[in-house]
């Protein structure tokens, strides 16, 4: 475990140094993404200015929701950037490079790339939480825990979907649609959705676990919400690891070992 952590930190450091080579692009992506999210949030300000509440949700709740979704999405794509590209890595035989090295394959693939804009998302998420003005130590602790668990759900879900590439070949478009659906649904009040749609958001597309559930957990502590989050995060992660390992047994390529620049 210690060895993996040291390895991860070394990868993140290398990614940061690589990004610093193009400092202006890095900074513009981080600030640009923060502005991008802020402009998007204007929709909710205008909406709640006119309608005050919808199914029990108000503007204050949306700050928490955006805080946790943006921070977890940002952390996920910054720390494990290849999670958005895993299907292509598998389909194009680029796993060969990682398989040839004495390091955990999945961890190595995922952390080999950092998406700079993710840092903008993460910072925006933290700012959104700050704007909600709930600064008691227990709420801050719950925000940190909520973001960590939501990040695990997000990354695990994408590993699961992108690993379909082992079976169906080009799964890039499918996984792009799945991640779009996950993020889009997570940014809306969960109470809008009823019946089967709600069931889907807690299972097939687990948007509730990167948005509404952690936001609810941050707002007010309950053992039930915490248990739901823990089961979703670690259950999905275990499933993702099993599926990736099963898929890896089927993996074959045309010997595409090459130098990774």
């Amino acid at each position, binding site marked *: 475990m210690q060895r993996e952590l040291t390895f991860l930190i070394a990868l993140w450091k290398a990614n940061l140094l690589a990004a610093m080579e193009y400092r202006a*692009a890095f900074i*513009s992506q981080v600030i640009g993404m923060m502005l991008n999210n802020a402009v998007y949030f*204007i*929709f909710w300000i205008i909406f709640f200015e006119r309608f005050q509440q919808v*199914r029990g949700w108000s503007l204050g709740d949306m700050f928490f929701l955006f805080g946790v979704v943006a921070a977890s999405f940002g952390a996920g794509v910054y720390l494990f950037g290849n999670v958005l590209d895993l299907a292509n890595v598998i389909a194009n035989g680029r796993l060969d490079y990682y398989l040839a090295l004495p390091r955990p394959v999945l961890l190595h693939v995922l952390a080999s790339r950092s998406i700079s804009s993710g840092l903008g998302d993460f910072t925006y998420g933290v700012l959104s939480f700050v704007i909600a003005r709930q600064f008691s130590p227990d709420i801050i602790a719950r925000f940190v825990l909520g973001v960590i668990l939501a990040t695990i759900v997000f990354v695990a879900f994408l590993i699961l979907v992108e690993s379909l590439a082992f079976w169906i070949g080009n799964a890039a478009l499918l996984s792009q649609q799945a991640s779009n659906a996950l993020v889009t649904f997570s940014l809306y009040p969960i109470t809008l959705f009823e019946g089967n*749609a709600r069931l889907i958001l807690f299972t097939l597309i687990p948007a509730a676990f990167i948005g509404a559930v952690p936001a609810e957990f941050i707002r007010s502590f309950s053992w039930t919400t915490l248990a739901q989050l823990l089961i979703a995060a670690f259950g999905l992660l275990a499933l993702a690891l099993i599926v990736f390992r099963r898929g890896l047994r089927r993996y074959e390529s045309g010997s595409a070992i090459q130098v990774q620049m």
Partner: protein
Amino acid sequence: MQNKLVAACQKYLAIFKIQIINSAAYPLDLATRSITMILFMYIFASLWDATYRAMGQTAIAGLSLRDTLWYLMIAETIVLSKPRLAHTIAESVKDGSIAYLLNKPYNFLLYHFSVAFGDGTLRLVFNAIIGGAMVWLMVGPPPDMIGVPFVLVAIAFAWLLDCAFTALVGLTAFITEDVAAFDWIYSKLVLILGGTLIPLDFFPAWLREIVTALPFAYTVYAPARFFVAPDLARFAMLIAGQLVWLAILALILLFVFQRGVTRLTINGG
């Protein structure tokens, strides 16, 4: 003079047609992309249904739930089908491939506009059919079908406006390393100030006055709003507004393009 103009139009029409044929080669890709349309329309239907119920009103700012959903269907169709020109132009500037297009017997910008229109047209058809079917099933037929041919003209001009904006964003690659941030912000301005997520009628009065005069409103709001309340006076105002902004943006675009090309330096080839 007239012959030259016809020949030029035929040239770009040919590029447009070739691009449509290219897109038609991947029907599964087109259908998969339309999933996003289903997703958004489902979310909007849930959100606005809950909102209208909570308000206990049949109409908000003059729009019924049916009007709002048909408005959003047209708005989403315009936005989800439109091509991502900024990225294409920025890449051709950064990797130097612009040099291969500049010496061809066509205008670099008009070439990209033709390709973009060709790329987006089939997506527009797919999205409109899928989104239209969904909304029809949920709230019934659109208020007035007479607006359809007019709205197609308005969408064509809206896309031209969008092409001009995104080309400007792409051309910033002449001076910056990365244009992604400008592209994100532009697309979010279209989402909010263009009225893609919420009809501008629901904005506070003072803000509505400002945003309806901006060019973003003419790329989404104006055509979608016309669709749910079509009348000739509104159409004339819409087209006039689009043409004015198009003329202003075309001038800026030409200026930026000329400046960019004069400072272009490419090694090798």
